[in-house]
């Protein structure tokens, strides 16, 4: 039982990270109907920027609690801003010129962009794995199961931070989409770009901002990943990207709450699979879910069924 609860907490943490990345996929898909294959690598960029800022500020496990919170906030903001510029640039260079081209074209540039980002990071930062010392340690012991042969269930500060900040971001984000002018024009573009343009919505700007927001959230996920696992390499975005995409599909691509829900469900499945079956095949489990959902339930958990227009 203790083991189960511990795994549940771990799954929620992992799922939050997947969910944050998945939002980027789902927003872009919703608005221009393409899979932004390079999004996983934008997440890597975010993690590397965060790493550099952490090293520049000299944050370590020894930093005092108040300072630590402020410093991490600073890291978060900087890496969100810089990663957002990356997201914007990718859209500007690789996707905007191909809007309205044949369907495979932007997908191919997206793959190209993904390769470029990965190898850019490898060439400039080196191929070796970069470890950092744990910055946030300790946690709240929820209950002690050692008396009857179990383990201590612990919610670490790190996990709490990830879950809480994901929740806060989700609330803020939902507000942004439902209540602000930007969110309104975004939803308008999603429904009908031409009509939105006729009504005075700057479509190009809205699409750019979608990429910027997606990249900023990916940067948050990147920082979380770095803090949680403490290791980085240029390849992390590949797996994380496919899994986040799986999460987006699972939740119903195009739906924001769906992306979050899909992320959490996928995180739970992956963690429980590793805990009770086999660690080696956890990726296979995640990918199989992708295939199964796409084949049997293409609109996902919360998505709208897609009608193909002639």
């Amino acid at each position: 039982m203790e083991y189960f609860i511990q795994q549940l907490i771990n799954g929620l943490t992992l799922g939050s990270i997947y969910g944050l990345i998945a939002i980027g996929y789902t927003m872009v898909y919703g608005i221009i109907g393409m899979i932004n294959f390079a999004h996983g690598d934008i997440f890597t960029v975010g993690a590397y920027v965060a790493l550099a800022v952490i090293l520049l500020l000299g944050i370590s496990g020894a930093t005092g609690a108040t300072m630590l919170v402020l410093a991490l906030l600073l890291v978060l903001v900087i890496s969100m801003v810089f990663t957002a510029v990356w997201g914007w640039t990718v859209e500007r260079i690789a996707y905007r010129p191909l809007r309205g081209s044949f369907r495979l074209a932007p997908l191919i540039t997206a793959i190209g962009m993904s390769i470029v980002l990965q190898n850019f990071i490898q060439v400039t930062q080196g191929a070796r794995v970069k470890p950092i010392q744990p910055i946030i340690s300790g946690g709240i012991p929820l209950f002690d199961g050692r008396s009857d042969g179990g383990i201590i269930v612990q919610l670490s500060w790190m996990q709490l931070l990830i879950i809480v900040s994901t929740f806060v971001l989700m609330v803020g984000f939902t507000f942004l989409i439902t209540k602000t002018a930007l969110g309104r024009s975004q939803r308008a573009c999603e429904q009908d770009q031409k009509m939105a343009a006729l009504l005075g919505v700057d479509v190009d700007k809205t699409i750019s901002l979608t990429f910027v927001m997606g990249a900023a959230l990916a940067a948050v996920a990147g920082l979380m990943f770095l803090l949680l696992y403490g290791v980085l390499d240029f390849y992390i975005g590949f797996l994380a990207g496919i899994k986040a995409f799986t999460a987006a599909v699972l939740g119903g691509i195009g739906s924001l709450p769906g992306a979050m829900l899909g992320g959490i469900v996928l995180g739970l499945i992956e963690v429980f699979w590793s805990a009770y079956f086999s660690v080696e095949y956890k990726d296979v489990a995640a990918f199989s879910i992708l295939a199964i959902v796409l084949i049997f339930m293409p609109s996902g958990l919360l998505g709208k069924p897609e009608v193909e227009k002639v």
Partner: protein
Amino acid sequence: MAGETESGTGQDQPVATTHPEGAQIKTEERAEAPNLVVSTGPRGLSERVKQAAIATFITAVLAFFFFPIRTSIAPGGLDITWRWSLYALALIFAFFGKLLVDAYLLSPAGPRVRAMVSGLFILGFVILYAWHPLGDILFGTGQFEELLGSILIGTVFGAILLGLVVLISRATGKIGTAATGVAAQKKADRISTFGKWALRVLFVVALMLPWIVMFLFPNRDRQLIDISILILTYVMLGWGLNIVVGLAGLLDLGYVAFYAVGAYAYALLAQYFGFGFWMALPLAGLFAAMWGIMLGFPVLRLRGDYLAIVTLAFGEIIRVVLLNWSEFTGGPDGIGRIPKPTLFGIEFNRGEGGFADIFGLDYDTIHRFIFFYYIIFVLALITHFATMRLRRLPVGRAWEALREDEIACRSLGINTTLVKLSAFSIGAMFGGFAGSFFATRQGFISPESFTFIESAIILAIVVLGGLGSQIGVVFASIVMIGGIELLRNIGFLSVVFGENFDPTQFRMLIFGLAMVLIMVWKPRGLISARQPSAVYKERKSIGADVVAQGEGH
């Protein structure tokens, strides 16, 4: 819009004339995004400089955490190394690069502006290079050379690609210009004539290659033939994938899975049942095709972009299974000592009964290299001829119809799942053949060889060559695989750019950039006259020639 991308070729054609009238209307109808502003680019010099400054600023932001700051592993954690010089140089290049690209490509400038911009650029470069001490002070010792190296490689590749474009455009008429009615037909005809002739010349060269190499470079023949074998392997894989991506229009990101199935099929058959190469080869193709059907059956009902992701996931699944099923596949250690192929039972080894012994030659390892070369040559030719024949069969025509319009296909009563499945499995079969050749050539295989990168390389070759173009795949393989292998082996480069200079680390970067640029510039690839195999006698205003320029789906 296609109009915009076409205008990027630097031709002085007004955008409106790049399409036949019918196509123009079609473009407007198809345009989902109201991208009404046709980018005119900067006009005056001050405007140009302003734009270049903006580009430089963006580069500065993008590169800030990657160029000047380098995290490296030090005792007791990570450490930061500063590289301001690299950053400065990158920014200088961003500024002048933007000016140059604008002046020559995006919004062609007058001769005075052009001369000024390029003069400045060249002058600065020459000063930096000639006055080496200054470069060292400005950029730090060693770094300058490294940077020059990457620039040189970029230039060399750019030049090769440009050369190819010019060559092809000479032969086929202006590239990227108006393709209307009769002119389009002429262009398409010229391209196909050019393709035929190029294929013939290439065929003869390829047939004679081992002898040419042995005659011209007697000291490095093994190495060169080895590179040729590698190139031919990628040509074959590219042709195999071309059936799936180029002809049927299905984006398969997991093609390497079938390559892996073929390789492991042979390796395991040899290990457990003692099969030889020639017996295992058809079986490997069969296995790969079966896997193609198995994987394809559930997923081929999906739309294009979903299919891409699912095939990618399947590719990874196969790799993970190969990696973890240690009892059967050897896991990460792979399978070694895979037997070499024989020539009608004659082995290529030293001593009694070997090839050299029977034919009365002196034993030389090169015999085996040549033998390998001809095996892959024949395999690649089989792939090519099978593709060309299949295109003329009803199923091939159905592939091309499917690529152009799936809904129309369905309305005409074509069983799209079956048609897709046939393309998928036939493509997979050729991948399987190539895989078992790879296994026997290497003698050792492990899951390391079948990562996503491999799929990406094959896809890049197909995309760069022009989706559906057979000869394009050959050019792309030669340039991208052969070019980089050659660069690695050119001795003087490491003398000029320092011992640690390794062009292969830029390989994937170049691949990726080329993929993006080519797609943006010419969405249908460099050599992009994909003629449908079946056409009406009379061409309509919107036909394959328009489709070839990126219109339609």
